[in-house]
C-alpha cells in the first residue's frame, strides 16, 4: 500500500504547488504614470460578458476599449489590482474573471479535479495490487489459469481466418 500513498500524495503535492504558484506572483500596482502595459496586466485577468472567450487585453470591440479605459482610470486613482477585479465582479458578476474564484459553488471547479485524479490513482493502485502476484511467488511463472492449448488454437484460428 505504501507506494500507492506515495504516488497519490506526490500527485497532490504537485497539484497544490501549481495551484499556489501564481497566487504569489500577483504584485501591487507599480508607482509612476499608468502605462498600457499596466492596464493590460489587469485586463488579462478579465473577460467581458459579450465577447466570448477573448481576454479583455486583446479584445478589439468598442465595449472592451471602454472597459480598458475604466481600468486605466482606476489605476490612476491608485486602486490595486484586486480592488479593480472586485469592482468588475460587483458590476457584472463572477463571469468576468478568467480564473474562477473559490467562493461558493465555484470552489467545486478547483476541488473536483484533484479528487477525481486521486480516486483514479487509488483505483489503479487497487487494480495493480489485485493483479500482481503475491510477494513470495516466482513472478515469472506462467499463471495456472491460462489454458495454453486453447490459447494456441484460438490464435491460430484467428490468424487463419484473417489471412485466408
Amino acid at each position, binding site marked *: 500500500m505504501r*507506494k500507492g500513498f506515495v504516488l497519490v500524495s506526490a*500527485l497532490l503535492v*504537485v*497539484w497544490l*504547488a*501549481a495551484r499556489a*504558484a501564481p497566487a504569489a506572483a500577483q504584485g501591487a500596482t507599480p508607482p509612476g504614470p499608468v*502605462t*498600457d*502595459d499596466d*492596464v*493590460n496586466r489587469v485586463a488579462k485577468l478579465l*473577460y467581458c460578458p459579450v465577447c*466570448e*472567450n477573448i*481576454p479583455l487585453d*486583446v479584445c*478589439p*470591440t468598442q465595449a472592451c*476599449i471602454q472597459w480598458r479605459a475604466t481600468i486605466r482610470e482606476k489605476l490612476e486613482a491608485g486602486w490595486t489590482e484586486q480592488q479593480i477585479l472586485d469592482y468588475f465582479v460587483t458590476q457584472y*458578476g*463572477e*463571469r468576468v*474573471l*478568467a*480564473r*474562477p*474564484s473559490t467562493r*461558493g*459553488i*465555484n470552489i*467545486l*471547479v*478547483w476541488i*473536483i*479535479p484533484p479528487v*477525481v*485524479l486521486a480516486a*483514479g*490513482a487509488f483505483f*489503479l493502485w487497487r*487494480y*495493480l495490487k489485485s*493483479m*500482481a*502476484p503475491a510477494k513470495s511467488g516466482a*513472478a*515469472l511463472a506462467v*499463471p495456472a489459469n*491460462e489454458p*495454453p*492449448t486453447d*490459447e*494456441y488454437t*484460438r*490464435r*491460430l484460428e484467428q*490468424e487463419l481466418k*484473417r*489471412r485466408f
Partner: protein
Amino acid sequence: MLANLGYFALVIALAAAVYAAVMAGLAADRHKPAWLASARHAALLTWPLTTLACLALIALLLTDQYQLEYVHSVTSRAMPLYLKVTALWGGQAGSLLFWSWLMSTFTGAALLRKWDRDRAFMPFVIVVMMITLGFFIGLVVFFENPFVRLWQVANGEVVGSMLAPAGGLALLPADGRGLNPLLRHPGMIVHPPMLYIGFVSFVVPYAFAMAALITRRADDEWIRTTRRWTLVGWLFLSLGLIMGGRWAYDVLGWGGYWGWDPVENAAFLPWLTATAFLHSVMIQEKRGMLKKWNMVLIILTYALVIFGTFLTRSGVLSSVHAFAQSAIGPSFFAFIALTFVASMYLLFREWDHLRGERQLDSLLSRETAFLLNNLLFLGIAAVVFWGTVFPMISELATGQTITVGPPFYNQATGPLFAALVFLMGVAPLVAWRQASARQLGRLLRVPFVGALLVVAGLMLAGIRNWGALLGFGISAFVALTTLFEFWRGTRARMRATGEKPLAAFVTLIGRNRRRYGGYTIHLAVVIMTIGIVGSNFFQIETQGQLKPGEQLTLGRYVVTFDGLDEFFTEDGRQVARATVSVYRDGRFISQLHPRRDFYVDSGQPMTIPGVRSTIEDDVYVLLVTWEPLAANGATFKIYVNPLVNWVWAGGGVFILGTLVAAWPDAAEARRRLAAAVAAAPARL
C-alpha cells in the same frame, strides 16, 4: 428544384439508414444471409444519396441562391469561390450534412473493405453505424435543414420552410449575409474537414467494439481490424487540432494558439481518450489484458465525439438557455445518453467474459507504465471536461454563469502533462512483464545526466523559472531516451547483419514501423513541448501609442511606426493597415503590416497580426487603435513568442511518425502469422 432534390435525397438516405439498421439486426437474429445482403446494400446506398445532397447544396451555394435560408446566412456575392464551397460546413445545418456525408463515406469504406474478413461482426457494425448516421441525417431532415426557403408571412415575419406557409410570399434577397468573418480564411478549407474526419473515423472502431460485445467475442480481433482506422482518425484529429491552433495564431490576434476555448476543448477531449486507447490496446494485443478497460475507452471516445459535435453545434456553450431554444440540443443529449447506456449495458453483460487472459507479473513493467499513461490521459480529460461543463453547472445551480479561463486549465493540466511527457521517456525502456530496476537505471543514466547538463546550461544562460527548467529538462531527457532507442536498434542491426549505419537505420524502421513510428511521434511531442514551454513561459509583450517615426522597445527588438493606410476592399472590408519596421539589436530585419479589418455588413472587427517568424522566436505585432488621419499615430501591441515555431515543426514530425506507424505492411502480416505458428510449440 435543386433544393427539393437535395432534401428528397436526404429523406431517402434516412429511410435507407433506418432500413439497413433494422434489417441487419433481424438478419443476424434469424440467420438470413439475404436480409444481411439487403441491409448492406441499403447502407451503401446512403453514400450516393448523401453525396447528391451535398453536391446540391454546393451548387446552390455557388449559384447565389439566396432564397434559401442557409445560403443566405453563410454566403454573399462578394465571397471568393473557395469560401462559397467551404460554406458547406460554415453553418450548423450544412456542417451536420457534411458530417453525415463523411459518416456515410466511412461506412461505405468499412463495409467494402472488410466485408469478407469480418463476416461475423458485419451485421452489428451496420446496426451501429446506421444508427449513428440515421441520427445525424435525422437532425438535418427534421431540425436543421439547409434546404429550406425564406418566406414572408402575413404579419411581416420572415420564416424558413420547405413548403409555402399559409399566405406566405417567397422572398428573394439580392445578396446574402456572408460567412462569419472569422471563418473567411484559407484554414477553412482544411481545418474543419480534418476535425470531422477525425471525429467520424472513431465511429468505426466503436462499431466493431460493439459488434464484438454483441457477438460475445472476447478476443482482440476488433482491435486488430480497426487499428488502422483508429490511427488514421487520430492523425486527422491531431492535425485538425494543430491547424486550428495555427489558424487562431494567424487571425485571432491574441498572440497565442490555444485558449482553452470550449470549442477547442470539445475536439481535444476525444483526442485525449483516443490517445489513451491507442496505447492501452497494445497491452491487450501483447498480453491479453485490459479488455474491459479498452471497451470503456472506445465507448468514452465515441460519446465524446458526439458530445464534441453537440457542444460546437447546439449553442449550449454560450448559455444553457440556448439549450432549450435550440431544437437539436435535447436530441443530442438524448442520443448521447441512450448510446452510452446501451454500450455500458452491453459491456456489463459481457463483464465476466472479458476477464484478462493473464495476470500482471510485476509492478515494474511496461504494463504498469501504460496504465499510468492511461491514468494521466484520463485525468487530463476529466479536468478539461469539468472545466468545460462547469459554467453550465454553475448557471443551472446558481443562475450565475462563470468563466473558466486558461489560468485554470494551465494550472490543473500543466503538472499532469509534465508527468505524461516524463513517462513517455521512461516507459519505452521498461520491459514487458517484469523489468529489472537495475537495468532500467542503467538505460536511463545517460539520458538523465544529459538532461541535468541541459538544465545546468540553461541556468548558466540565466534562466531561473523553475517551471521552464523542468519543462526543458524533461524534454531533453525524453529526446535522449528516444534517440537512444533508435541508436540501440540500429547498432543491434549493424552487429547482426553487418549493414552500414544508414541502411541498418532504414531497415530497422521499415521492419518495426509501429514501434519506430510511435517513437517518432514521441519525438514530435517533445519538439512541441519545447515550443509550448518556450512560448508559455517566455512570452513577453508591451503596448504603446506611437506617432509616425516613434518606436517601442521589447527585449532585443525595436519596432518603429512608419505609416498607416486606410482603404475599402471589394469584399466589403474597411481596412486600416499599418507599416512598421522591426530592428533586432539595432539592425533592420523586417517590415511588417499589422491590420485591422472591419467587416461593414456584420459590424465585426478582426485584428490581423504582422508576424516575423524564425525558429528562435516570432515578433508578433498587433494594431490596437489608430487615429483616423494617421497624424496622431496609432497604438500597437507587440509580443515576442520564443520557440513558437517548434509547435508547428513538431506537427510535421507528428504526421511523419503516424504515417510510418499506419503504413500497410504486408511483410509484418506474414511475420506475425509465422511467429504465431512458431510460438505454438513453446506454449504447448
